[in-house]
């Protein structure tokens, strides 16, 4: 079965029909999705800008991670569920949309970067105290994260202009 058949079968489900058949459900999901996205990016930016040494230089990086990673993960879960429901409502238009596909690729990159960051730096950053610059690889990871998330926002916005 190819991807288009899968999209058609998804579209025929009661859940898909319920969302796409309502005037308000899809916009409401978009509102929740945007809210979740800005919380995710806002919280990640606080950590990334500290890694880059541009903001909160006086703060212990490990402490910032402890404060903001839970916020990021919680908001991401909400955004993911809202986004998945939007996808279920019109899977055929999303899989045919280049910006959607690029956005999914960028999300995978952001996720891989976050996991790699956690595995490689979380121990060593425990020793990066307040006022101390992050090591160069950690700074690059922060720059990559911030850039990818901004690109994710742009792709997400552009999806709406191409369907």
């Amino acid at each position, binding site marked *: 079965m190819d991807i288009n058949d899968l999209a058609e079968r998804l579209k025929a489900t009661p859940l898909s029909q319920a969302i796409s058949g309502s005037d308000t459900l899809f916009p409401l999901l978009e509102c929740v999705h945007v809210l979740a996205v800005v919380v995710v990016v806002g919280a990640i930016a606080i950590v990334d800008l500290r890694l880059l040494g541009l903001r909160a230089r006086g703060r212990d990086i490990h402490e910032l991670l402890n404060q903001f990673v839970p916020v990021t993960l919680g908001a991401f879960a909400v955004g993911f569920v809202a986004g998945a429901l939007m996808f279920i409502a019109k899977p055929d238009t999303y899989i045919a949309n280049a910006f959607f596909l690029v956005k999914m690729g960028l999300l995978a990159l952001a996720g891989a970067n976050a996991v790699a960051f956690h595995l490689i730096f979380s121990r060593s950053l425990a020793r990066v105290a307040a006022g101390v610059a992050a090591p160069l690889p950690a700074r690059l990871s922060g720059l990559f994260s911030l850039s990818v998330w901004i690109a994710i926002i742009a792709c*997400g916005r552009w999806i709406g202009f191409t369907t």
Partner: protein
Amino acid sequence: MLTAFAVWLRATPFSIAIASHDWIIPAVQSLHIVMIAALIGSVLVINLRLLGLIETGQAVRALMDHYLPVVAVSILVLALTGAVLIIGEPTRALFRITFWIKMALVAAAAILTWGLSRFSRTPMALAGGVGAAYVLKTGAVIALILWTAIIFAGRWIGYTEGWPGAPQ
């Protein structure tokens, strides 16, 4: 008068330039959302701290001094990017009730944030009494509700019809 303004605006070279390039509106909207992320990240830290839910090891005043300038700059850039969006499509948002609801909510949220900042400097708040904590926590809950409503209203502008008599 608003109609005349919109019609005049649409004939300006700046408006024509924006409208003649398909990528400008989505690009400016993307920048608008990135700045909303900066704004929401900042107000979230301030208000969740007031509620004692995050950054409890940091002083409220220190966090406000760190994040309030970001709030102010974000609102300024949001006003500018929002203005570009209106200039590009003058007959769109200005004639939709959700846009004006959003503006009223932004004014309320900005005034509330300023008020909470002022209040947090008062001797009463610095003394850390139960009454002051109650005021700050209530304000934080209202602020978070307002910012959420602003995001919902912003998204809903695109789903609102212009009011009767709006120019096409």
